[in-house]
């Protein structure tokens, strides 16, 4: 392993050394995906990575970039910021000009800061951080910078759409319970839920933060939910924290509706069973959405990757498609890649997804995108987890309606 990596570096350096005096040589665009590919967080990391593979394959099917195929480098960050920081160095050494990650907001905060510093110290050799799923709001607020792009939703975008859809369908209720995980992402959810529930004229009767994916038994929290008299539980919980929450709610015979962001993680419906029926999900994409182009996309994805893009995959697929549009706006004529030009092109690019247009807002580099609301139902077209349930599309929220104004805390310094 070590040896091959060393050999590869040696070969690359050697080739570079030989090629350099000869003048311009086309630089291959390398995208590094630094994700959790092992350990507990891998279940989310792998889905994002599969979407990335599919997306990059499509770029290459359309002719690649700079006269060469785009290369996807995959690195396992082992679930944490320490691993990610190390892998970032390796990725930059391998010549990656675009770095991506998706799941953990802690990893994203580390990579964003590392890349900001790298770019300050290496003018002309900048790296773009093309994040496709970390939701912590600070990344496009206090910590926003020119090289960071969030190509996914954030809690404010998701909860705004979710609460409005639930209100319009008369399933929001008057009393809302807000339960979230205690870290940047969950704290943002708590704030977003408080804000949009209030706007919808309902009340958050109680809100609680709990440890992340450590709790085996949610029944104490269910006892609190019951005591509060809430009709609806809104939560940004993911993985075990949502499965166990639904199970505990159902087992206590509590009649509340759940609004969530991650019910589509494989295994969630299978585990929650009929207890999940009626729950609401807010997500970038729904397999039922998008008419004929949507159908074509999910079938093609299934042929290439082996399953439908039913959870996180569409985010990285759509993000790379938008990147593809940006790359069409620049031309390095087979020379070196200028990351700044690519970043500026990303701000201008537009891509039509099966459910509507994607574009990047220049103010804070948050992608402006349509999102979907679904209900767990037996009437869904695509059933999941070998159950008789799936996600029935409730509505598609258009990009401009889903967008939330940029944070005043984002003071982006653009390169001169």
């Amino acid at each position, binding site marked *: 392993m070590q040896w091959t990596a060393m050999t590869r570096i040696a070969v690359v350096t050697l080739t570079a050394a030989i090629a350099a005096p000869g003048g311009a040589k086309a630089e291959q665009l390398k995208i590094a995906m630094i994700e959790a590919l092992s350990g*507990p967080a*891998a*279940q989310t990391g*792998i889905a994002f990575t599969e979407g990335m593979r599919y997306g990059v394959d499509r770029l290459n099917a359309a002719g690649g970039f700079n006269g060469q195929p785009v290369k996807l480098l995959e690195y396992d960050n082992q679930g944490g910021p320490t691993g990610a920081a190390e892998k970032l160095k390796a990725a930059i050494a391998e010549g990656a000009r675009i770095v991506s990650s998706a799941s953990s907001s802690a990893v994203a905060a580390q990579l964003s800061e590392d890349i900001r510093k790298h770019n300050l110290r290496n003018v002309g050799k900048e790296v773009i951080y093309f994040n496709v799923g970390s939701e912590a709001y600070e990344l496009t607020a206090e910590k926003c910078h020119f090289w960071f792009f969030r190509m996914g939703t954030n809690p404010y975008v998701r909860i705004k759409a979710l609460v409005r859809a639930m209100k319009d369908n008369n399933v929001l209720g008057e009393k809302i319970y807000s339960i979230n995980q*205690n870290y940047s992402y969950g704290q943002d959810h708590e704030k977003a839920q408080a804000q949009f529930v209030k706007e919808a004229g309902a009340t958050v009767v109680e809100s*609680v*933060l*709990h*440890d992340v*994916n*450590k*709790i*085996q*038994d949610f*029944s*104490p*929290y269910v*006892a*609190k939910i*019951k*005591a509060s008299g809430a009709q609806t539980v809104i939560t940004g919980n993911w993985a*075990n924290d949502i*499965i*166990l929450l639904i*199970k505990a709610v159902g*087992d*206590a*015979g*509590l009649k509340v509706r759940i609004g969530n962001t991650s019910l589509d*993680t*494989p*295994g*969630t419906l*299978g*585990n929650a*069973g009929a207890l999940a029926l009626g729950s609401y999900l807010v997500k970038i994409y729904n397999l039922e959405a998008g008419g004929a182009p949507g159908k074509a996309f999910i079938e093609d994805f299934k042929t290439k990757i082996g399953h439908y893009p039913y959870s996180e995959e569409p985010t990285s697929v759509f993000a790379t498609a938008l990147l593809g549009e940006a790359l069409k706006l620049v031309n390095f004529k087979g020379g070196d890649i200028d990351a700044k030009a690519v970043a500026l092109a990303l701000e201008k690019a537009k891509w039509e997804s099966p459910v509507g247009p994607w574009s990047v807002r220049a103010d804070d580099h948050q992608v402006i995108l349509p999102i979907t609301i679904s209900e767990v139902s037996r009437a869904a077209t695509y059933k999941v*987890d*070998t*159950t008789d349930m799936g996600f029935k599309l409730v509505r598609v929220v258009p990009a401009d309606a889903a967008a939330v104004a940029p944070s005043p805390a984002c003071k982006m310094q653009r390169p001169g």
Partner: protein
Amino acid sequence: MDFVLFSTLNGIIYGLLLFMVSAGLTLIFGMMGIVNFAHASFYMLGAYIAYSLAKLIGFWPAILLAPLLVGLIGVAIERGMLRRVHKHGHAHELLLTFGLAYVFEETVKMLYGNYAVPYSIPADLRFPAFTLSGADYPFYRVFIGLTALVMFALLFWLLRRTRVGIIVRAAVRRPEMVGALGHDVPKVFMGVFGIGAWLAGLAGAISGAFFTTSPNMALELGIIVFVVVVVGGLGSLEGALVASLLIGLLTSFAAGADVALADLGGLVGLGPAMKAIGGIFTVKLATIAASVPILVMLVVLLLRPSGLMGDKT
């Protein structure tokens, strides 16, 4: 009042579940002097094997058979691996079990995938045992608790009231002496290891259906189980029971407690000042419920390093 009642019940039953897994760990430590890092993996294996078997032979036979298979795996590990490295000392045994935990986790991922598998209790078991002021209390939860109690009674009787128990307890204290008296000490060790694995497998088979069966379950429970064993006193079965219940109840009540340090400070008039400082003073106990066991362990280690009921120093 309801809240207190619910939290108590939930705490006791979660505690009893912890006991089923930690009983084997503490016995194995008491006897062989090694912390078995792969112990929580037996819990995971129990759940996965029961999930596979339940599809073939039904739920009840599966939760009986799966723990037996896990017990056999335990026996095989003791006989085929641990015994071989025993002569090289504890560090080697420790590393071996550490490695095994990884091997089990990755094997499960290869066979069943990265996500939680849909292992759940049959629909006809999904009924309330009783209703407390409007909220149902699931029967299956009571069943988990009862199983653990029966297991404790059985183990206690076996260790304290039978000849086998005498030999086992003696082998824990003075293995050379027991060997000199003509008993097969390695076989005793193997038996205890097998029973420990069987118990953890049983806990997994039963509770995996109620909670989730995922590749992370060993990791999630593993830490808590170590805490239980340390708090209870390494090697002490009664200690494990007391510590399990203590930690179960504390976690349960902490999750429901809406108090922060600032509220405590408020009792002596420091409330507003502490709230102004923020940070640790305004963190609600409910937020850090899952860390409470670790805090308990710290306190116990400081005040009583041998654990609540441990007699070794």
